[in-house]
């Protein structure tokens, strides 16, 4: 079995059964909220590391908020779903999140494990030594 890129992070936070058995390798189109500059390394960090890098506290209000998904990258299954999910956020929240653009990638089976969630959202748990930046493209602004 291949190692996950952030297996140490998962272990350090005692996240059991992470990622769970529902996750699979698959090929799928995926869309992610990103910063306009495609080379910005923040575009390719899972939430936990993103917050650390930005010197932000982890956004939690309950003990069960340190979830497995914080060690994954968030995507949506379609451009429409990605935009819908963004525009339902109050403007203040959009501003705090900071994302302005929509990025596209064709996830391949060798990139990692995919987990589908509600509202067209999916998580990608990257495999070790995977660098997504070369496979990514910015396809437009979010607003």
């Amino acid at each position, binding site marked *: 079995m291949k190692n996950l890129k952030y297996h140490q992070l998962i272990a350090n936070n005692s996240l059991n059964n992470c990622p769970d058995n529902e996750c699979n390798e698959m090929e799928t189109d995926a869309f992610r909220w990103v910063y306009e500059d495609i080379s910005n390394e923040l575009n390719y960090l899972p939430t936990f590391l993103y917050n650390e890098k930005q010197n932000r506290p982890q*956004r939690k209000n309950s003990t069960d908020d340190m979830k497995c998904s914080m060690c994954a990258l968030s995507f949506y299954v379609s451009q429409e779903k990605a935009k819908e999910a963004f525009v339902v956020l109050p403007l203040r929240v959009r501003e705090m999140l900071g994302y302005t653009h929509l990025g596209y990638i064709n996830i391949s089976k060798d990139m990692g494990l995919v987990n589908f969630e509600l509202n067209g959202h999916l998580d990608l748990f990257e495999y070790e030594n995977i660098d997504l930046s070369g496979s990514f493209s910015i396809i437009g602004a979010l607003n």
Partner: protein
Amino acid sequence: MEKIKGNIISQLPFQGLKKVSDLIEYDGPILSHFRDEYDNDYLYYWVDFNESVNRWLVWKIDELHLYKYLKGTESLKELLENKDKDFVYSIEIDSELQYKNIAAVYLNQIPEKYQIEEESTYKLDIPKLYLPVIEKYESDFYLTTLRELSLEFTLEPSNHKYSTTISALDAGIFLKKLCNSYLNFIQEDFFSKFKHTFGDYSRLQKVVGQFKEILTPRIVELEYGSFKVSIGSDFTHTVGNDEYNKWQREILNAYKEEVIDVDYSSSESLNRIAEKYEVDARRRIYGPYLDILNDKDYKVEVTNYKKTFRKVYNRVETSKRKILIPETIENNHDNEKRKLYSVVLELDEKQDIKNISTKGLKEGLLFSQEMKDVEIIWNEIDGTEYYFELNQPFKFIFTIDNNNSYKAENKEFGLEAIGSDKDEVFQNIIHQFEENYIKITNGDFAGDSNPYSTLIKNAISLN
């Protein structure tokens, strides 16, 4: 972080708070639903952060409002600003889940940057764990919400012969006119707001037609005594996109502002309406409503569900009415093509056909036929100077042409009279008949034989 003005407290006054679900999340919670040990519900809404804490606004919410939010009929802004509370709590939570700087903040002290815009309705999939809540409120939610958004019309009779009751006929006509006014407003408003988005006019008409069916006023409350009826407008069935949904949710209120909450005694406000709407739209929207306000049998009062709005009316003066509906437009129906019908009536022997009622006409009608023209027969002629007793009937052909011009013609006597209605034509032909008779008696007749000599038995001077 924004500076918070509030009263610092040591801890939240709730016990046993546990998260139920994150209603909105992205890489962590954004809007979370909590419940305390007494089953009270609370929302945590993420509004700010610095390098050590995230700040949340926390407030209590009842289950019905939570249901409305999940169903998309109440926005997050409305939940936050609901006046059922005076203040919310501001709390700061660090990465170790320690609560800091807890403050009670009055609604009007919430920093401007934390204000939520109107379009903050919930559009995501409803988490399955809320299905019991949805089922609980679904059955009476529709009626409850329609009532809350409704307008209440009270009709007070002009005289109290029958106490404060209103005749069923008046109530029926009132409802019909109100519906007509409202549905015409819907059509006008939808056209003006969305017609530019349609390339195909027939598609536009189809959508308007669908909305007029959906939005036909629903009766949501009824009382007699003084006749009270509350009118609501559907918000659940819809056609198309979010913009339409938003328009649909606001249309009854728009009608209230544009038609109901109008000072009909003010030329200024009526001129404003006249500038905004074309005459035909004004006739269709305001015509029926002005008829209601000027009905001699009752007076109208309008309120909303929470009684925060109340409108009473005086009769609308004719001069004011004409600002909205110029007379030529109002009488537009007179320009419609008039037709002649021959009818066969069955009447009782003693019934006078000249005094027959509409009901009698309907009941006695055996059959009818459209006529191109009709022969009118008079056995006597009552002029302005003479009364003529006739030896034989005087006959003429009566027609209405395509321009609604009325004509009476008798070729034998060379008479042809034209007028804008029946009475004018009859007066004209009598006048011609009389004039010719006077000419004859004065020796001015130039023909070979005098047709009047065989027709007229006696000409009795009325002077």
